[in-house]
């Protein structure tokens, strides 16, 4: 066994990602400390870790976001390093700096790199300076419609007018033709003023029907940066990724390599160290791609890259943070086969994906060949209302895309979660959708109509009818037996072979 990179690591997160990091630590011979809120005493990451420390009440703001308390816990338990997972404090440069200032190792990029990529406009300017393609547009407000129109013609229509202070689609207008520009400009300004008390608007080229493609990078502290190819994360609902796959089914290989080269360039431009992801918009129509943002941490969807490259990204983070130079070169990284991830949410697909926390009364996760479940729950666990609804990730590998899809469908069919509702039934219909099968789907794939159609496609009313009638019959005819009793005898035992029935 090689020397562990650390003696002990504190994992400043919860749920499946905390369990993921704890697993990587244990495999490397590193001891672990979990932190938990009062609502999480029974959480799986507490059960999985070597030690566990309570850091405060249920709300994240009073526990998982309390950097000082977490650093104190690390110092008290003798941890040498802190791994932030994703979300919570993972992209908080000030927290990263505090960890370092406390004499601990931060398992993530340098705070300066987090900072550089943290501001969207700052990152955009830095990327332009580094020669990385960004969506053509103005990073700041434009004074007049006339001035803006000149730029719009330069970018090429369609263009988007966006509120500088904006978000949530307010003060946003798509313009397809120069003739419509002036009126769209006025109405965008007016809506921006009403929504944000600020009528500043700016311009961006509209990327029609784009794919969301991202490149995984790994960089060590000795100046080596490599990429681990792409992930296609275009299946999104409410701007949240739902299904990811690698490789992208339709990306031309020269574009793939060009994006990867740009991603390495972007990471090097900010002195990146560790695991990171460069997100791009990719236009299938034009074949062009544009830098969107960089995630300076491990991604939710990192497992699909692991499955096709054979490289354990969480372990790599630990070894890099301990100062180890990369132990492989770019040419050693080869994509083999195809991998798909489905994010399992505690949400009810039949109720517009409303959150569905509650107790998991029964759980059987799928298994067998090339099926990986990164789970944050167990049978009997109560999914709390306080945190993100993602309870697990199903990751399947296949020697090709068809094999990966059919294996994922098989695994979804095995997956049993009782007691709460989840997005599981929805995925099997999604993976069978012909528009998913041909791989050309864009970020607009999951329209409300498609969501409804896919959910309806997973119904089995005939079977549900028979089950409900039998359940009622058992209830009516055996009133004295408590609900939880298990009748163990089967008709077969009494009747013998069915051939004779």
């Amino acid at each position: 066994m090689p020397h562990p990179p650390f003696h002990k690591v504190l994992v400043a997160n919860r749920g499946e990602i905390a369990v993921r990091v704890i697993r990587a630590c244990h495999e490397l011979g590193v001891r672990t400390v979990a932190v938990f809120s009062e609502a999480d005493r029974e959480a799986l990451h507490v059960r999985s870790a070597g030690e566990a420390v309570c850091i405060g009440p249920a709300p994240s703001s009073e526990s998982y976001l309390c950097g000082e308390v977490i650093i104190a816990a690390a110092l008290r338990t003798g941890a040498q390093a802190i791994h932030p997972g994703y979300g919570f404090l993972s992209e908080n440069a000030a927290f990263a700096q505090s960890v370092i200032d406390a004499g601990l190792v931060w398992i993530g990029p340098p705070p300066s790199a987090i900072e550089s990529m943290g501001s969207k406009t700052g990152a955009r300017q830095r990327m332009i300076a580094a020669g990385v393609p960004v969506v053509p547009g103005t990073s700041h407000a434009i004074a007049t419609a006339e001035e803006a129109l000149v730029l719009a013609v330069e970018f090429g229509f369609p263009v988007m007018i966006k509120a500088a202070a904006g978000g949530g689609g307010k003060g946003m207008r798509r313009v397809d033709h120069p003739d419509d520009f002036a009126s769209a400009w006025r109405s965008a300004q007016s809506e921006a003023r009403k929504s944000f008390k600020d009528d500043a608007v700016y311009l961006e080229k509209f990327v029609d029907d784009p794919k969301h493609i991202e490149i995984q990078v790994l960089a060590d502290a000795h100046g080596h940066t490599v990429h681990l190819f792409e992930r296609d994360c275009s299946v999104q609902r409410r701007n949240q990724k739902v299904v990811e796959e690698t490789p992208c089914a339709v990306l031309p290989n020269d574009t793939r390599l060009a994006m990867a080269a740009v991603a390495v360039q972007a990471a090097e431009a900010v002195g990146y160290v560790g695991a990171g992801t460069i997100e791009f918009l990719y236009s299938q129509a034009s074949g062009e791609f544009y830098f969107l943002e960089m995630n300076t941490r491990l991604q939710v969807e990192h497992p699909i890259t692991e499955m096709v490259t054979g490289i354990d990204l969480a372990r790599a983070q630990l070894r890099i943070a301990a100062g180890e130079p990369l132990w492989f070169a770019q040419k050693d990284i080869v994509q083999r086969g195809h991998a798909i991830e489905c994010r399992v949410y505690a949400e009810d697909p039949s109720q517009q994906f409303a959150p569905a926390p509650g107790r998991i009364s029964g759980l059987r996760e799928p298994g067998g060949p090339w099926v990986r479940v990164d789970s944050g729950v167990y049978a009997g666990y109560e999914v709390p209302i306080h945190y993100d609804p993602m309870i697990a990730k199903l990751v399947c590998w296949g020697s090709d895309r068809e094999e990966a899809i059919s294996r994922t469908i098989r695994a979804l069919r095995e997956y049993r979660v009782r007691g709460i509702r989840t997005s599981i039934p929805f995925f099997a219909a999604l993976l069978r959708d012909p528009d998913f099968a041909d791989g050309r789907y864009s970020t607009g794939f999951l329209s409300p109509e498609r969501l409804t159609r896919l959910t309806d496609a997973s119904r089995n009313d005939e079977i549900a009818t028979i089950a409900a009638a039998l359940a009622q019959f058992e209830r009516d005819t055996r009133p004295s037996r408590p609900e939880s009793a298990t009748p163990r005898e089967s008709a077969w035992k009494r009747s013998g072979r069915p051939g004779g029935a």
Partner: protein
Amino acid sequence: MKYEVTIEGTLRHVTVERRRDGAYRVVVDDVEHIVDLSRPTPDAFQMLIDNASWEAGAVFTPAGWLVDVMGLTTEVEVVDPRRKPIQLSAGTSGGTLSTQMPGRVVRVLVAAGDPVTKGQPLLVIEAMKMENEMKAPIAGTVADIFVAEGQTVESGAKLVRIE
């Protein structure tokens, strides 16, 4: 036993009989099935329906059975016609809005006495970092508000009654 089973708005007539060999004869709208039922765990109904292997979860609630098949949960109402009057007297929720999801009430948008239209948002419940608007099931006047802002509510809790 004869049942009236309502699922997704469709009514089906179902007859269930236990045979001497222990299997069930289930007739759904004149289509007959022979079902061998086993309960490998208390919450699982493992059925061999004419040899075809199916599994469902079924949980009894006052509103009916919550049945999940292949992961999708559906509310199924099963009524014994002979007991129908009793069943009906239990009443439906009518103008009372309840929550199917536990969470925290972050905003109450109406006050007692307010007139409301059907579908109008009455309050907002937050669960798992998402806000969800709870809408009026019928038009009318707000008669009672059972919850306050900041309060945590369990699944099934009554929120607002409309007259």
